[in-house]
């Protein structure tokens, strides 16, 4: 299969706000269960090991007409919770057996309680992660949180989740993480070959498909890309930061590239890229997952940074690693974590003479002109004067 047909499939998945593919997966075998989760991170391995499908829920995108969702949120709250509520109320998520609300911000945290009130029959859990990275403090707490989750899921599944099963799942997710890293590396090396929208759509498919299927898809794409030739444009190289929760509309991602920027790294949907290294498949799986989280998880605004000097280090590293020429801070409107973090990151970039700009969006932003103008001027300035 060529990239085109792979991407076409991804696009269909992306646009389908009824999640047919997940419904089909569930219907294919009796007793199958699906657990939804929101940004930014949950240990999918445990869900997978329970024989369930972890499904990433990233709001309703730009095409969902939100009618009831607005009834639950004031205008100064970001959009992802309202479109998620809309999905729930309109029955588009009626196949879910459980829903996880990770620790990321007050909005999603409170949504966990709303879900409990609105959908009392569905298992809903606020999933906490430690902001203390000592093995015997935060680590112990986190392991117990995961054990609780494991017990809950076992109840939901109707059977125990064995250590072996989780270790097996970790192995599969390790392969998956490697492929995602490969995709990002390829795009960074030859961005004209992997347009932003393609990389993005591929990743989005991974939020819905079973991991095994997505592994094949990624392999297929990576193989196909090698065979194709795409023209290289005179674009500058940038990193997108701040879009780890509510997603920008596809048009925005497209607009940035159109305006002259190759995106060489991003933090869209960190979920798949949260644990940055292989997780050990030996010993106590829960402990391994905890270790990986404490010591090798990606930095983002949703995490506490223990030391002043470490704030923004990950972004600097990425700029270096990907030879980026600038950083675009693109955060959802009213996104507290991203917007509070931004001044610190911007400061850090300025200190290192890395050009940066920032703007806000919503998942349903319609007007791309200001975005193009800002990204375009940014690209102009890098191109004309460097």
């Amino acid at each position, binding site marked *: 299969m060529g990239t085109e047909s792979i991407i076409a499939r991804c696009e269909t998945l992306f646009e389908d706000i009824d999640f047919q593919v997940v419904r089909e997966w569930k219907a294919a075998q009796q007793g199958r269960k699906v657990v939804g989760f929101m940004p930014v991170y949950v240990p999918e391995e445990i869900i997978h090991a329970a024989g369930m499908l972890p499904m990433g829920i990233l709001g309703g995108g730009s095409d969902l007409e939100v009618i009831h969702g607005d009834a639950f949120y004031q205008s100064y709250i970001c959009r992802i919770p309202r479109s998620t509520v809309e999905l729930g109320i309109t029955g588009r998520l009626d196949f879910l057996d459980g829903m996880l609300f990770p620790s990321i911000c007050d909005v999603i945290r409170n949504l966990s309680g709303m879900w409990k009130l609105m959908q009392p029959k569905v298992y809903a859990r606020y999933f906490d992660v430690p902001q203390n990275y000592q093995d015997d403090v935060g680590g112990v707490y986190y392991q117990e949180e995961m054990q609780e989750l494991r017990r809950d899921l076992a109840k939901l599944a109707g059977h125990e989740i064995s250590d072996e099963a989780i270790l097996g799942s970790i192995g599969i997710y390790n392969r998956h993480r490697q492929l995602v890293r490969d995709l990002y590396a390829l795009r960074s090396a030859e961005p004209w070959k992997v347009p932003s929208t393609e990389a993005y759509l591929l990743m989005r498919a991974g939020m819905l498909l079973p991991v095994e299927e997505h592994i094949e898809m990624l392999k297929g794409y990576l193989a196909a890309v090698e065979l194709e030739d795409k023209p290289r444009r005179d674009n500058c190289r940038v990193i997108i930061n701040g879009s780890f929760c509510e997603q920008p509309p596809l048009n925005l991602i497209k607009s940035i590239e159109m*305006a002259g920027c190759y995106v060489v790294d991003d933090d869209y949907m960190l979920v798949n890229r949260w644990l940055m290294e292989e997780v050990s498949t030996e010993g106590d799986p829960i402990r391994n997952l905890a270790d990986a989280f404490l010591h090798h998880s990606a930095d983002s605004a949703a995490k506490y940074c223990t030391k002043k000097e470490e704030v923004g280090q990950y972004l600097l590293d990425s700029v270096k690693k990907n030879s980026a020429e600038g950083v675009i801070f693109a955060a959802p*409107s009213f996104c507290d974590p991203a917007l509070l973090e931004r001044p610190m990151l911007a400061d850090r970039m300025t200190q290192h003479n890395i050009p940066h*700009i920032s*703007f*806000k969006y919503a998942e349903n*932003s319609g*007007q791309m*002109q*200001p975005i*193009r*103008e*800002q990204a*375009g*001027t940014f*690209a*102009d*300035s890098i191109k*004309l*004067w460097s």
Partner: protein
Amino acid sequence: MTISVGIDIGTGAVKTALFRSSGGNYEWLARCNDKIRQRDPLELARKGLDQVLEESGIGEEEVDYIATTGEGENVTFSTGHFYSMTTHGRGAIYLDPEARAVLDMGALHGRAIKIDGLGKVLTYRMTSQCASGSGQFLENISRYLGIPQNEIGDLSKQADNPENVSSICAVLAETDVINMVSRGITAPNILRGIHDSMAGRLAKLLRVIKAGDGVVFLSGGLALDEGLVDSLNAAMKIQKLKLVARNHPDSPYSGAIGAAIWGAFRHEKLNAMAEAS
């Protein structure tokens, strides 16, 4: 010698400028400024081009580079497109070599751009999706008050007790203004109030880009509104910005000028690169 044309397609008008340049000397040969008034901007762009060609007596085949800016990405006959902050920065330097920041005050957005002595854009900031305090808003109010736009500035300068315009929303502010009129507040005081509130926002943009000190060049449609210029200077003083706001009779052309100059620059650079290889 390079002949280049810059076309700036804005929300309210299409501006066109034709330049002849050689070795860093730029000569402005022809210009055209056409209000859009519900016409197709792309057609007006073509019209503008034709008009500057006619005015300068230069044939289209002699033009080396046609650069669009503003909303001109879709113009089919252009050689290249520069984004508007790039061009306003350069245009500003052409019109006022002392400028180190540009404030582009358009119908819907305000933009603050920090530049160096060569017109290079250092940083910039735009107003957001909400239209409070936009030029459009001022336009609506003046229409409501029955005051032609070119008189706003003078009237505003006559204010003795500017009225605070509080609401954030442009539409709700409109109602504020209605109430002011019914409370007997004079037009100058209302206009000045609006100018002050706009200026406050614009000055804030300048603060955000850390414009430093020196001259802020005003470009865009509102640049010639002296009342706003006054308010802006006052607001900058309040916000402790050591800047002086300055405009130029040709301020509205900054984008087109910048586009033409960058077009010429790019043309020469591309030529040099072609020769080198």
